[in-house]
């Protein structure tokens, strides 16, 4: 009887574990449908045949400030969208949380910083963030033209808030995009994402 109670407890605990639906390198990218800062709805399926970058963003986070204050992120937006890549900047900050933005605020911030993503997605309920397992701002994902996750991880190999580190850092997203656009396998397909936690609702 004791043994049965134990087994039941174990099963209950296992059932309580959250399902593991995250973006895994080499597997199909999780689907999402999210409105952008202008109210336009985007689904991953809309970008079939294109390379897609997802960049998790919170403008008040010092790690994000490192890459926008230095112009590093905007440079990537411009360089890769000019080459036909779809770049989606995603805000999963819930209402009342740090970095929460409405469409007007998101556009104003991007304009002020001269950011040029394809769109800023407002993932206020955190559905897309949780589907991808987005943990930090920034947390970067590259999806190839077939819809397979090609890269998941940090923007580079220098986890810090120091702008000065960017010059000597290896940018994993640039490297992955260069390889994906050339039809090559991605050398560094995963890395440790670093940054602030994504400010999901409690």
């Amino acid at each position, binding site marked *: 009887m004791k043994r049965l109670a134990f087994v039941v407890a174990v099963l209950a605990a296992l059932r309580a574990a959250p399902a593991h639906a995250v973006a895994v390198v080499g597997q199909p990218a999780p689907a999402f449908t999210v409105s952008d800062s202008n109210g336009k709805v985007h689904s991953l399926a809309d970008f079939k045949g294109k390379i897609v970058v997802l960049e998790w963003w919170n403008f008040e986070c010092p790690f994000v400030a490192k890459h926008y204050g230095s112009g590093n992120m905007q440079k990537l937006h411009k360089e890769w969208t000019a080459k036909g890549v779809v770049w989606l900047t995603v805000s999963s900050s819930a209402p009342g949380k740090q970095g929460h933005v409405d469409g007007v605020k998101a556009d104003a911030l991007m304009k002020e910083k001269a950011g040029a993503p394809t769109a800023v997605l407002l993932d206020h309920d955190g559905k897309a963030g949780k589907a991808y397992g987005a943990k930090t701002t920034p947390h970067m994902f590259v999806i190839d033209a077939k819809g397979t996750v090609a890269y998941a991880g940090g923007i580079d190999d220098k986890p810090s808030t120091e702008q000065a580190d960017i010059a000597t850092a290896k940018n994993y997203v640039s490297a992955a995009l260069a390889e994906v656009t050339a039809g090559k396998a991605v050398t560094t397909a995963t890395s440790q994402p670093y940054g602030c936690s*994504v400010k999901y609702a409690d």
Partner: protein
Amino acid sequence: MLPFVRVSGGVLSALAGLAFGVPAVSAEAPPGRHVRASLVAESDAMRPGQALTVGIRLEMEQGWHTYWRNPGDSGLPTRAKWELPPGLAAGEIRWPYPVRFATGPLVSYGYEHDVLLPVEIRVPAALAASEVRIAARVDWLECREACLAGRADVSLTLPVRPSAPPGRNAALFAETRRRLPRKDPAWGFAASSVAGSLTLVVRPPRGTALREAYFYPTTPRLLDHAQPQLLTREGAAHRLALARDPNGAPAGHLAGVLVAGTGAGEVAVEVDVPLVSGPARTSLKQEK
């Protein structure tokens, strides 16, 4: 049976208050900041040829935290860059075991209230100076919900004396040493991995009741920190079920700190074992 989150640090604060004769909550962070950094030494003097333990002390406002060597899902470990006179050398930070912070679906590892991060300073036998200044630039990340980058230049000047007994901060260091994970061959560990899950087999010393346990990994990019860790018992051994990070890196070792709730209180033991493929065996031999 269930993973546990424990709030701690209060003891250290209380002790620190006693040691300094001031209320522990009086630490004032610089304007706009929430953490006060300082440098303290275990002795009030430095003796040539005798290693000196110093500590970076971070006093955090209520609700704010800083990070452990592995910050978990987000954050950054505290770092120190030393400025020492010729002949002196600083070792690595020794990390007291952390607590967990859950924010939404994410889990990170760190400290709240008050922490001392000890560092050993090697002192040469030939030391001509009458006093020595030890300085460090300390960088940390302080977070409540939002995060700020913190930095301070801290320093300490000690006289050079023929003997260096424990000084006025000795109690603070003694309390911190109790929170440093120790190597203990009386604890047996083995780790194995099947697909997305990983099992740490734990065999506590004879007579030690293991009531709860949490494994804080130091092996980078191995575990999914946010998944619950399930402890089950099998005879004299216990299994701690851990989840792998699906985008993690391959690992041949499992290293970290097991914080175990036992009948005699909480203990923190270093774990560093090969990670083998296949189902877990609980019949592991006790290390001698």
